[in-house]
């Protein structure tokens, strides 16, 4: 459904409730029809705080791994048995087996040595400007991607969540919405607000869309309702367990993104926090990984028929130290892991040029050595999913990046 349809539906519902005639309603605001430039769907998840790639995607086949991390038995691995997913990601086993989930290891942005979340995240989202003191980009790489596509509509890309997402900031139009936002007004207040905004080119369209999106959030089938069939229901029951049947904030994100992407939206981005595991990560990391696993499964469920055309990319600002620190956690490091999920990806495998965990192979004597640029994999996904060519990716989207020969990442 387009935003126009939404506004109209919301408007009809309301006017019916108020018993007004359509002519008297102030809410008939024309909204531009979205036109999607591609059929593929891209979802970018920023894992804020620095995910520990060594623990999330464990190199169990590396002879030095066991000595660095004393850990319980992992459950799912790649074919060669070299990598294994953290047990908290076990719910993703079916996705892995279906070939809809892959890992990328020993990757990072070119950001080095300072290990600040603030700068690391800014640079990950800017996708350029890594030389210290280099000009700071004024837009994010997903926005620069949109800038290369003529006639892109605002609804093509959605920044989801309350915080300003630098990744999508820039000159190209995009929409944003926080699933937590809701406009709850009495019918009379809503009608009066419509009269106040009537004819105002700034306030009228924004309010119409806010009301439409807010009402759509109420009317969108919830994940629980989407969960058709036995497996779906079981999955939801398990995810809702211990939450009193209500979806957590992260599931609301997935729910909203799914709803939009089944319509005109082709690109969405949001953040998942909670990866900065300095203390006792045996307790903290499983929580963050559980949320990630739930989000991916909720997206699979919610995207339904378009899951097959979807690629989800989950990336983080940097990895963490290879060795545990004195408080059972890990400190800010360099190389790390990323995940790719979706029916469109070539899954069940880990893409990597593994550098090794022996002391001589580490970066700075402490961190996993990055052997590839995390941006190259993001670019590769866009190349295959949207048919973008290399000059666009290497000059406009990620200026200065060399994608190189990575082999196919999508199915």
């Amino acid at each position, binding site marked *: 459904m387009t935003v126009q349809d939404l506004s109209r539906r919301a408007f009809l519902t309301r006017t019916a409730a108020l018993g007004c005639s359509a002519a008297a309603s102030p809410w008939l605001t024309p909204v531009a029809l979205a036109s999607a430039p591609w059929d593929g769907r891209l979802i970018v998840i920023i894992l804020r705080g620095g995910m520990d790639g060594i623990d999330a995607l464990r190199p169990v086949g590396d002879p030095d791994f066991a000595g660095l991390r004393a850990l319980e038995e992992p459950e799912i691995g790649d074919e060669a048995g070299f990598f294994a997913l953290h047990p908290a990601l076990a719910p993703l086993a079916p996705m892995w087996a279906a070939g809809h989930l892959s890992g990328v290891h020993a990757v990072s942005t070119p950001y080095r040595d300072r290990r600040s979340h*603030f700068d690391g995240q800014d640079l990950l989202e800017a996708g350029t400007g890594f030389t210290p*003191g280099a000009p*700071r980009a004024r837009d994010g790489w997903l926005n620069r991607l949109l800038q290369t596509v003529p006639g892109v509509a605002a609804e093509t890309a959605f920044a989801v969540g309350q915080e300003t997402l630098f990744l999508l900031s820039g000159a190209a139009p995009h929409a944003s919405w926080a699933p937590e936002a809701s406009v709850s007004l009495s019918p009379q*207040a809503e009608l*009066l607000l419509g*009269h106040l905004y009537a004819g105002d080119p700034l306030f009228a369209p924004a*309010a119409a869309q*806010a009301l439409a999106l807010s009402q759509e959030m109420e009317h969108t089938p919830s994940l629980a309702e989407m969960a058709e069939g036995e497996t779906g229901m079981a999955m939801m029951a398990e995810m809702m367990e211990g939450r009193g049947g209500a979806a957590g904030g992260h599931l609301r994100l997935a729910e909203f993104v799914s709803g939009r992407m089944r319509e005109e939206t082709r690109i969405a981005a949001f953040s998942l926090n909670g990866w900065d595991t300095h203390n006792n990560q045996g307790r903290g990391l499983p929580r963050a990984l559980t949320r990630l696993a739930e989000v991916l499964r909720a997206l699979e469920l919610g995207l339904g028929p378009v899951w097959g055309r979807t690629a989800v990319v989950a990336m983080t600002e940097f990895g963490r130290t290879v060795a545990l620190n004195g408080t059972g956690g890990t400190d800010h490091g360099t190389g790390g892991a990323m995940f790719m999920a979706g029916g469109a990806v070539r899954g069940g495998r880990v893409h990597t040029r593994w550098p090794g965990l022996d002391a001589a192979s580490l970066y700075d004597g402490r961190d996993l050595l990055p052997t590839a640029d995390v941006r190259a994999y993001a670019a590769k996904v866009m190349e295959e999913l949207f048919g973008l060519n290399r000059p666009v990716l290497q000059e406009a989207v990620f200026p200065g990046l060399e994608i190189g020969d990575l082999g196919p990442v999508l199915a």
Partner: protein
Amino acid sequence: MSYETAVLSARFGLGPRADGSEPAGAEGLLTPLAGPDAIGARYPIAGYADIAPAAVELRRLNRARRDAASSDEEKTLRQERTQLLRQQRVRRAQDLGTVLARASETADPMRERLVRFWADHFTVVGKQTFLRTAVQSYVEEAIRPNVTARFADLLRAAILHPMMLAYLDQARAVGPNSEVGRRNPKRGLNENLARELLELHTLGVGGPYAQADVRQLAELLAGLSVRPSGEMIFAARRGEPGPETVLGRRYGRRAPKLEDIHEVLDDLARHEATARHIARKLAVHFVADTPDPALVDHVAARFSSTEGDLLAVYTALVEHPAAQASERQKAKMPWEFIATSLRLLGAPGRKLAETPLRDVRRHIYAPLTEMSQEWERPPGPDGWPEEAAHWISPQGLAGRISWAMGVPQILMGLGVALPDPRALVEGPLAPLAGDALRFAARAAETREDGVALVLLSPEFQRR
């Protein structure tokens, strides 16, 4: 009060107070600016120098924790650290409460608007734990006392402030041929501050400078640093031996000196391109996203002829016919929407300044984030966007609607009675209120809805 006066008051000030008092025209806005900062004195905010000792203490606790002999000792130190950090968070919340208190009660409202404008022009973001709570102390110390001085004074205070040196990575920079640089070849220059100084703070992005100027300026700035105690110092041992050439002029000799930096800042402050850049920014912020070129010319000319005397520059801005246009093209930014609402509703300053952390979180921090303006977290050194369409987005407007609907609860906490919406549109907002707003104030089902509609009206949100 005429429509024109009310527009001017919203455009350059903070609109009417509950009792209907607001500055009478251009003179009413400009005259108090020339006097003392009375509201700042009534509701003080600690300067950076006053709070820096807490940063020293925090570092001491971090070190002591690392070296703790026993787990008991470690635990005690951890609790002390938690306590200290909490105090800083409480102070940060009270700083915001104080910002709102000043806005609510001041008879000198253009000063508050100018402080926010210049704090945004010289944006800093706290990147580390302690600095995250220190932003307003920078504003209080470097920006506020200088908003009515010369631009050169303001520029020097902002650029040489420890917060700016930390934010734009200057504090770690080392001249490659300096005493320290020769011994540590891995350390070097950082061009970040030099670049933003030319691009954002003075000449502007299209300004007459090249990469070589950025590089030379970075060499000139090398040596600026921050003492562990939090003061700015110039460490000559890290300074690059000169001279350096910036925009065709040579600065410094062999031995690096702070005075060379003062000299280049003064020259940049009075540059023709700086005059145009600042004039345009003022016009965009206060008047229109695409301002009348005649307005920009007029303000830039005054900037040049007075060598950046800011009071004269503001006078040029306010007196120009284009700045008094009746069409209101700008939308209030979220902080301004909240501040002017509280002012209109008569929120008492003393209570605002003492708002507990919990209430600041609920009623101010979280709503600002929902309106897309997370407090003290602008997206980059270029500060917040200006365009009205950026702020009045579906999400941003949804945030404003939620906040407006929650106003009765906020007023209850402040001990203020909810006003009659009809009194608002017939009283303080009378010159601006259109027919639809007058009707809405009467026709709302409840007093709460009525007040929310008044705050949400284009008449109140545009300026």
